[in-house]
C-alpha cells in the first residue's frame, strides 16, 4: 500500500485520473465476450443453419440445398439414433447412480475426521483430474482380453476362465459405467463433503435433546442439508456424462457391435467419418437443446447454493 500521498494528486483522485470506470468496464469485458461470440455463438448459429441443408464438408464444391426439416425428420425416424440415445441414457443413469452412492458413502466416512483423512481425500481425488482419453486408453489395457489384469483378477477369483469385459455385449456397457464411476465418484464425494461440513452442529444437538434416532437425524437433518450440493453434483455429472466422448472412444470405440455407441460418438462419426454434415448438425442441435436445458438448471442451483 502506498504511504506517501502526492498532495497535488489528492484532489482529483478517485474521480478522473486515468480512464473512466465505464471505459475500463468495456475494455475489460469486451475481449472475453468477443472471443466467446466468435468461437461459441457464431459456430452455434452456423450449426443451426447447416442443419437445414444437405451440405457435406468433404465436398465443398457441391451446391448446397435447403432441405427444410428433412435432417430432423430422418433423425427422429432413425431406429439407430433411438438406440444410441438409449445407450446414452443407460450410461448416464447408472453412472450417476453409482457415483452418488459411492461418493456420498465416502463423504460420510471421511466426515468422521479420522487421522489421515486429508491425505486420503487428496489421493482419492486423483482420477478425476486425469485426461479422460488416456483414462479410456489405459482401462482398455486393463480390460484387455489377452493381457488385462482386470479380467485376470475376475477370472482368478470368479473361476470363469473366459471372462472378458470389453468383448461381451452384456458387459461392455458396464465397463464404460465402471470407468466413469472410477473417475468421477470423487467429484460427488467432494461436493457431499462440503455439504456435510455446512450442517451446523446445533441441529444435531437439538435432535439429540428431542431423542431423534440416528436414522431420523440422517433423514431429517443431514440429507436435506446436503441435498442442494448433491443436486449440483448430479446435474453437473449428468451434463458431462451426456457429452462424454474422449473416454468412451478410446475405451470401446462404441463396440462390441454398437452396444456402447453413445450419442456423442455417433455424432462424431456422422460428422467426420460419413461427412453427413447437415444431418450431423441437426443431431448436434438435438443434443445441444438437452444439455442447454440441464445447464440452465445447473446455474440456478449454483446460484441458490451461492446465496446460502
Amino acid at each position, binding site marked *: 500500500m502506498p504511504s506517501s500521498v502526492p498532495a497535488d494528486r489528492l484532489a482529483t483522485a478517485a474521480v478522473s485520473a486515468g480512464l473512466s470506470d465505464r471505459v475500463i468496464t468495456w475494455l475489460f469485458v469486451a475481449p472475453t465476450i468477443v472471443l466467446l461470440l466468435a468461437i461459441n455463438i457464431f459456430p452455434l448459429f452456423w450449426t443451426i443453419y447447416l442443419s437445414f441443408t444437405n451440405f457435406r464438408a468433404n465436398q465443398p464444391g457441391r451446391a448446397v440445398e435447403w432441405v427444410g426439416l428433412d435432417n430432423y425428420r430422418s433423425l427422429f425416424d432413425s431406429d439407430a439414433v433411438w438406440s444410441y440415445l438409449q445407450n446414452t441414457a443407460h450410461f448416464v443413469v447408472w453412472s450417476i447412480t453409482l457415483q452418488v452412492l459411492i461418493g456420498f458413502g465416502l463423504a460420510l466416512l471421511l466426515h468422521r475426521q479420522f487421522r489421515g483423512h486429508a491425505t486420503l481425500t487428496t489421493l482419492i481425488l486423483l482420477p478425476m483430474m486425469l485426461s479422460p482419453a488416456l483414462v479410456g486408453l489405459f482401462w482398455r489395457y486393463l480390460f484387455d482380453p489377452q493381457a488385462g489384469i482386470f479380467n485376470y483378477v475376475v477370472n482368478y477369483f470368479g473361476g470363469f476362465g473366459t471372462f472378458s469385459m470389453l468383448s461381451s455385449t452384456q458387459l461392455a456397457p458396464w465397463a464404460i459405467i465402471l470407468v466413469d464411476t472410477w473417475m468421477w465418484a470423487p467429484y460427488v464425494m467432494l461436493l457431499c463433503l462440503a455439504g456435510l461440513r455446512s450442517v451446523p452442529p446445533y441441529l444435531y444437538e437439538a435432535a439429540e435433546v428431542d431423542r431423534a434416532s440416528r436414522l431420523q437425524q440422517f433423514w431429517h437433518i443431514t440429507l436435506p442439508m446436503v441435498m442442494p450440493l448433491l443436486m449440483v453434483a448430479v446435474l453437473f455429472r449428468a451434463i458431462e456424462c451426456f457429452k462424454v466422448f474422449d473416454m468412451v472412444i478410446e475405451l470401446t470405440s462404441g463396440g462390441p457391435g454398437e452396444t456402447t455407441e453413445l450419442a456423442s460418438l455417433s455424432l462424431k462419426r456422422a460428422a467426420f467419418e460419413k461427412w453427413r454434415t447437415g444431418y450431423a448438425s441437426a443431431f*448436434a442441435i438435438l*443434443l445441444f437443446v438437452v444439455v442447454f436445458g440441464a445447464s440452465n438448471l445447473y446455474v440456478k442451483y449454483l446460484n441458490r447454493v451461492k446465496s446460502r
Partner: protein
Amino acid sequence: MDRAAAEVATVPAGHSTARNPTESSPAVKWLAGIVVAIYAVITLIPVAWIAMTSFKDVTEAVAYPPVVFFEPTLEGYVNLFTTRTRATPEYMESLPPPATWYDRIVRSRNMVIAGPSPFAGRFLNSVIIGFGSTFLAVFLGTLAAYAFSRFRVPLKDDLMFFILSTRMMPPIAVAIPIFLMYRQLGLADTHLGLILLYTAINVSFAVWLLKGFIDEIPREYEEAAMIDGYTRLQAFVKVVLPQAATGIAATAIFCLITAWNEYAFALLLTTRTAQTAPPFIPNVIGEGGLDWAAVSAGTMLFLLPVMIFTLLLRKHLLRGITFGAVRK
C-alpha cells in the same frame, strides 16, 4: 478464516464438527478410516499398474497371466521416443558395439534405432498450447472478472450466465463449423488455432472462478490507493492483482489441466504440426499392435504433471469444480 475453512484438507478441529454427534467413538473412526483406505488403494491400483507397465519390457507388458514381479527396464520409454527397424543378423554383426544404453536395449531385440519418434514434438505442442491458452484465458478472465466484480455492468447476470453456458455446450455441437472455419482461415493444424479454441473453452471458467476470488478482496484497498493518487488501472495492477495472486495461480492450474487433457478438438483439428499428446499416445504402434509398454510410458509422462498439479491445487479443488460457487 474463510480461506482456511475452504481447505478440503484441513478443516480446523472444532470448527463445525466439534460437538457433532457424528463425532464418533475411536472404534468407528478406525473402521471408517480402514474402509476409506481400502477404497483409496483399490482406486489407485489402475494408475499404479500403468506406472509398473511403463517399466516392463515389451513382452512382459502383454504377458498372461500378468507379471507382477519383473526386472525394470526403460524399453517402453526408449520405444516411445524412437522409431526402430528390424535388422538382419549379418547387419547386426557388422555394426560397431552399441554406444549408449538405449542402443543396447534396442539391439537386444535385433533392431536398430532409425530416428526419433514424433512423441517429443507432440509433448512440446501440449506444453506450448497448454501454457499459451492458459495465459490468454487467465489474462482475459482476470480483466473481465474484475469488471464484473467492481463495476455496474449492464445485464451483469445475463452476461455471467451467457459466459458460463458456453462452457456447458457440447463441444461437438460447434465442432463442425469450427472445423469449416479453421479450414477456411488456415487455422487447422496450427498452434494458434488450438490456443484460441482452448482459451475460449477456459475463459468462461476463469471469469467465474476469478470473480469469486476478487469479490473477496475488500474494495477499500483500491479506494485507499486511489485516494493516494493511483488511477483505477494502477490500483488494479498494483493493489488488486497481488492480492488475487493465489486465486489467479489456482485458476491458471485448472485451466492448464483442462487444456492439457483436451482430446476431441485436438483429434479433429490437428494432424501433425500442432497435434498434442492425447491423440498421439493411443497410436504408439509396436510390432503387431499397440506397444503397451511404450503407451504406458507416454501415459505416465503425460499424467505426472497433472498429478503434481493436483497436489498443489488440493485446497482449491472444491472451489474449482463448482466454478467458484462453493468456498467455505
